[in-house]
């Protein structure tokens, strides 16, 4: 599965909306339920799925799918 597909499944799950469709430009502003509570849930789910650990800076700044893609990319290139 492509990274973006995996992210879509995670978001569907976290926001409990199986019709949710995302692309890399999707951001917190596009999803009404993306509040501070679900933000932490989302970060935890992404960390689990991709086996990464976000820094504090990354976790507070990440606001869009693009951000997540970049963080996943950086983490994996760093560890591989």
């Amino acid at each position, binding site marked *: 599965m492509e990274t973006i597909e995996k992210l879509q*499944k*995670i978001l*569907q*799950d*976290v926001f*409990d909306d*199986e019709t949710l469709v995302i692309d890399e430009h999707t951001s917190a502003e596009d999803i009404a339920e993306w509040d*501070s*509570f679900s933000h*932490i*849930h989302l970060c*935890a*789910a992404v960390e*689990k*799925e991709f086996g990464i650990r976000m*820094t*504090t800076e990354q*976790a*507070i700044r990440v606001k869009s799918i693009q951000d997540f893609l970049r963080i996943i990319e950086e983490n994996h290139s760093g560890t591989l």
Partner: protein
Amino acid sequence: MTDLIQIKFSDIEQTIFSGSFFQWNASDILSLSRKLMKQETQLQKNHPELHPLKIAISGTCNTQYLTRILRPYLYAFGIQPLFYESVYGGLMNDLMNLESDLYRFQPDVFIVLRQYRDLEAYPELLSPMDAVNDLAEREVQSQLALWQFFHKHSSAQVFLTNIAVPNRHVLGNLEANLVSSRNTYLRMVNDRFLREKPSFIHLIDQEAMSADFGKDRWFDDSAWFISKQPFCMDALPVMALSLSRLTAALTGKMKKCLVLDLDNTLWGGVIGDDGLEGINLDPNHAIGEAYLDFQHTLKRYQERGVLLAVCSKNDQTIAEQVFLSHPYCYLKLQDFAAFTANWNNKADNLRHIAQQLNIGLDSLVFFDDNPAEREIVRSMLPEVAVLDVPADPAQFSVALDKAGYFDWLQLSKEDLSRAQSYAADQERIRLSESSVDYDAYLAALEMDARIGRVSRSETERFTQLINKTNQFNLRTVRYSEAEMDRLLNDEAVYPLRAILADKFSNYGLISACILRKQEEKRLWIESWVMSCRVFKRDLEKAMLNHIVAVAKNFGCAEILGEYIPTAKNGYVANLLDDLGFDLIAEENGTRRYSLSVSSYVPCETKIHVTEETM
């Protein structure tokens, strides 16, 4: 990742009540909980057996994630929660302000997370022991004062975490060598709080939880800085499991008996095939030592009041050989309250064991190395808890501890003597077989009872008995310790208890009855419970004699009783009829009874009763 998004309602229901999500990671459980919240009304409708409880949660940290995670766990334990969540940092206001939402909510349970960051003052380095002690004492006293204030205004039971000593060691190894170090001090505060805590506070052992989990993972400073979570996300399920299990214990849902297989569970090898020489319990062999160590662990469970039982596919006499003749076998036949070795299926045998011990199937925990047997029991007897036994016997003891099935809220003297008293049951059964009739048997038991008002030192046991008894329980009313306190100080209330002994064992306090004087010269039996250990001894008759005496003392002319049926109290459905009460009303199965004091003829029993002052 669990594929949650496709899950249907029936699957959510199944997932929650089977507890299969316990092994999931925190973010998946958060998602499950979210789905659950959407379906909660339907779920509650499908499960009228759920026990509703009002649960308040607070702390000096963010408790939102814990609350969210707790929800499915509580349902899994048969509890339907109504939550009150304090705002972040709102603990002090909630506690001190009688107008606060907390007091308005009137919680049954108040869960409070504490953490090392709560402490403002630490000893100065190189302070002498006395100074450190004084500071710890002041810290604990100021906390206790808050809780005493709370207790005065709320009947809630409090689940308060102790403090997890952090993975911070500014002093390095000196943390462990100086009484004035922060980590030493935190341990002292924990110890002192334990020594001085009142009984309505139940400490949740966060210190042990975090150590077992691994402190470097438990503490997640980033999560604290970002969202004020006191520990990492993945620690939430650990905390939630413990909290929900203890909450369930509060409602009387407790495991009492551990049912064990024999071959390759209590020893290495198969006695029927390998013979006595083939049984490995050799302390000089790694595998033998592992089984032997497990036997020692089991003995400790037995000593703390957990009943041990055997359920094995074996010939009884062959199986008993190991206990009688193997040089290294540590457990003895007398350690088991029930011993079933035959070729029937294990589900039937478990039913038989529950019946023999007079406890519910839902009080049993099944421990068997054979996955096929576990699966059969799981599917045929869903009430029985089935432990996931690891393949390696070296892990048996820890697996049993970690499963936490015997996480009780209290331990009483009666719990500790229970095992011996079950052993005495075996002798009693032999006596009953040799007696010509039941009356002769009762007489031969040489029973002695003390019947009278409960004393101060007995109130903990009194409360425990009322709150956990299901079978002999006329109205199944439960009381918090605070409610019980008020009751015991109420002049219109006579809290009656009975203590019984026979020539085989001393049962201790095994029956409790709450009598309340009402208007128009009536005495109301608000609650009456009796331990199943002493059924069919005519103790209820001896107690009724005392109840009538209490009525006379209060100047009452009539005694009123009531039977409210539950799934478990069919045993006492006709108790009041049998005791000579008149049925005066019946509605939806609830029956009200009356007994006239003036025409009462005292019951004869075979019990020698020591009358106590009123």
